[in-house]
C-alpha cells in the first residue's frame, strides 16, 4: 500500500491507487471498489478454474484465426462460382463442406463470413461501449439536468424495440459494414450507459472522490482518473455478451436481406439456403452452426468474466 495517498492519486498510470488509498484518507470509508489489477489476475485465474470458459476462449480464438486467415486460406472472391451446385458436405475433396445452389464453396463462405460477423460484432460492441460509458459516466457523475436529459434519452432508446429500430435505421441508411455497426451500436449503448451511470453515481459519493475534489481537481480528471477505473470492470464484463448479441443482430439482418449485399455473411448464407430447405438443408444449417458456436463461446466466456469481475453476482450461495 502506498504510504502517501495523495501522491499515489497524482501519479498517472496507476488507476487502481485511489481506490486502495481511500481507507487511509478516512478510516470509516465504505468498502472500496474492486481494484482493476487484482481483477485482471482474477480473470486469468477464473479462466484456469473454469474449463467451459477456457473452451469458449479457445473456440473464439480458432474462429478469429479463421477469419483473419480467410484471404490466405481461400483466396479469391467467396461469392465466385468454383464448382458444381448442390454438392453435399463430405462428397467432394475440393469442397469439404459442399457448395451452395450456385456452386460457391460453403467453407470459403464461412471463413469470409466470419470476418464480417466478428468484424461487425466487435466494432458495434466497441462503439456501443465507448458511447455508453461516456454518456453514462457523464450522467452519473454530473447529476442534475445533464443526468435528467441523458436518463430520458436512455429511457427512450430502451423503450424502442431494438430490432424494429434496427430495421428502420438500416432501411434508411444504405447497409454497409460501417452503417450496420453504427446502427447496432445505436441500439446497444443505452444498456451500457445505464450500467455506467449507476456505477459512477455510487462512486462519486465516495471519500476518495471528495478528497480529489478538495484538492481542486477538475471534473474531467476526477472522472477519468478516480471514478472510471473503479466503475469500468463491471461494465467491461458485459462486452462479450454485447459482441454475442451484435453478431446475432447482424446475422438476423443479413438473413432478411437487409445486410451489405456485397459481402458474404453467415446470415446471408442462411437466407440464401432458405429456399432450398427441402432438398439442401445443409446450406442453411452450416452457417447457423457457425453462429451458434461463436455466440456460445462468447457466452461461456461472458459467464466466467462475470463471475470473476462482478463481485455482486458472486452472492449465489453454493
Amino acid at each position: 500500500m502506498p504510504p502517501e495517498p495523495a501522491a499515489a492519486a497524482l501519479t498517472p498510470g496507476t488507476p487502481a491507487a485511489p481506490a486502495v488509498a481511500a481507507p487511509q484518507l478516512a478510516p470509516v470509508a465504505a468498502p472500496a471498489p474492486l481494484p482493476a489489477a487484482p481483477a485482471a489476475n482474477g480473470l486469468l485465474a477464473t479462466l484456469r478454474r473454469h474449463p467451459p470458459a477456457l473452451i469458449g476462449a479457445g473456440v473464439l480464438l480458432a474462429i478469429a484465426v479463421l477469419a483473419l486467415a480467410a484471404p490466405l486460406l481461400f483466396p479469391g472472391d467467396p461469392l465466385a462460382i468454383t464448382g458444381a451446385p448442390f454438392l453435399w458436405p463430405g462428397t467432394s475433396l475440393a469442397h469439404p463442406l459442399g457448395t451452395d445452389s450456385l456452386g460457391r464453396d460453403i467453407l470459403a463462405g464461412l471463413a469470409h463470413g466470419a470476418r464480417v460477423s466478428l468484424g461487425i460484432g466487435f466494432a458495434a460492441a466497441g462503439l456501443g461501449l465507448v458511447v455508453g460509458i461516456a454518456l453514462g459516466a457523464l450522467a452519473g457523475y454530473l447529476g442534475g439536468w445533464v443526468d435528467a436529459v441523458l436518463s430520458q434519452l436512455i429511457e427512450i432508446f430502451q423503450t424502442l424495440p431494438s430490432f424494429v429500430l434496427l430495421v428502420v435505421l438500416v432501411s434508411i441508411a444504405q447497409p454497409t459494414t460501417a452503417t450496420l455497426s453504427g446502427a447496432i451500436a445505436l441500439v446497444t449503448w443505452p444498456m451500457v450507459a445505464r450500467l455506467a451511470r449507476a456505477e459512477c453515481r455510487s462512486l462519486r459519493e465516495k471519500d476518495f472522490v471528495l478528497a480529489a475534489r478538495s484538492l481542486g481537481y477538475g471534473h474531467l480528471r476526477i472522472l477519468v482518473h478516480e471514478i472510471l477505473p473503479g466503475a469500468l470492470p463491471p461494465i467491461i464484463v458485459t462486452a462479450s455478451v454485447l459482441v454475442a448479441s451484435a453478431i446475432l443482430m447482424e446475422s438476423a439482418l443479413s438473413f432478411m436481406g437487409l445486410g451489405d449485399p456485397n459481402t458474404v455473411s453467415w446470415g446471408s448464407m442462411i437466407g440464401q439456403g432458405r429456399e432450398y430447405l427441402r432438398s439442401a438443408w445443409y446450406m442453411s444449417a452450416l452457417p447457423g452452426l457457425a453462429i451458434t458456436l461463436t455466440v456460445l463461446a462468447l457466452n461461456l466466456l461472458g459467464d466466467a468474466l462475470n463471475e470473476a469481475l462482478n463481485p455482486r453476482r458472486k452472492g449465489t450461495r453454493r
Partner: protein
Amino acid sequence: MKRHLPRLARIAGNTALRALPTAVGIVILGFFLLQLAPGDAADVWAGEAGGAPAQATAAMRHHFGLDRPLGAQLAAYLSGLAHGDLGWSARFDVPVTHLILERLPGSLLLSATALVVALVAGVVLGTLMAAHEGRLLDRALSVVALLLYSLPSFWIALMLIVVFSIRLGWLPSGGAHTIGLPESGLAGLADRLRYMVLPVLSLALFYVAIYARLVRVGVIEAKAQDYVRTARAKGLSERRILVRHVLRNALLPLTTVAGMHVGAMLGGAVVVETIYGWPGLGRLAFEAVMGRDFRVLLGILLLSSLLVILANALVDILHGVLDPRVGASHAA
C-alpha cells in the same frame, strides 16, 4: 384486494407520468427518422406513377404539406398522431393506422403466447434446476439453457421447419390456418394451434433459457432466507413453502425482466413472422422495408414502443400486487 386499490391507482398514475416524456421523445425521434428517409411521399407517388413532371411533384408536395417549414410539419404530424392518424401508406394505398390495426392481433397473439410459454417453461426448468442444485440434472439443464441462449431464432425457426414440417410432416411450415377449413369451432381452433406451434417455439426458446437461469438463482437465494426457515419451522409443507414463500419472491425479478422483453419479443417477431408467413406486424414491417414505405415502418415502430410502455406499466402495477412494499412509502 380493495385496500390495494388506492395504492395501485397511485402506482399507475406515477407510471403514466413517467411514461409521458418518453412517449413524446419517441414520437419526435420518429418524425426526424422519417425526415432522414430518402425520398418523400411525393417522390414515392411519382415513382408509382412511373415518373411525373417536376411541377406535378411540387404540387403534390404542396398538397401533402411537405413544402412547409419543419416545425409546421412536426406540428401537423403530432396533431395527426393525437387523432390516431399515422399518415397514408403509399405502398398499400390505405391509411397506415388501418394497416397496422389489421395486423396487430396476429402479432399480439404470437408474442403473448411465446412470452407465456417461455415464462412457464422457464419457471418449471429453473425450479427443477434449483431443486437439484449442483447435481447432474442441474448441470445438464444449465448446458441446455446456455445452448438455447446462443441459438439465433431465425435459424432455429428454419431447422424446426426442416425437422417437423419437411422430414416428419407433423406441423405446417407457414401461414396461420388451413385454407378451406372452417375458421371457427373446435376444429378451426385446433388447426390454428397447429400453425402456432413452430413460430411460438422459435420465438420462445431464447427466453426459456433466460428465465430458467433467473428463476434458478432466485429460488436458490430465496431458499436460504430466514422467512423460509420460519415457514419450515411452522410445519408448512414443502410444496406450500415453494409456492407461497420461495417462488413468490423469486418471481419478482422475473416480472421486471419479462416486461423488458416485450419489445425484444416484438422485434424477434419481425424475423419469425417473415419466415412463417405469419400475418402480423413483423411481416408488415418486412413488406414495408421492401416497398420502401417509411410511414408504415415508423407507424410500427411507434405502436410497438407504445406496447412496450404499456407492458412496463403493467409490470409496475403487478409489482404492486405481488409486493406490498412497493408504493407504500407515501401511504397516508
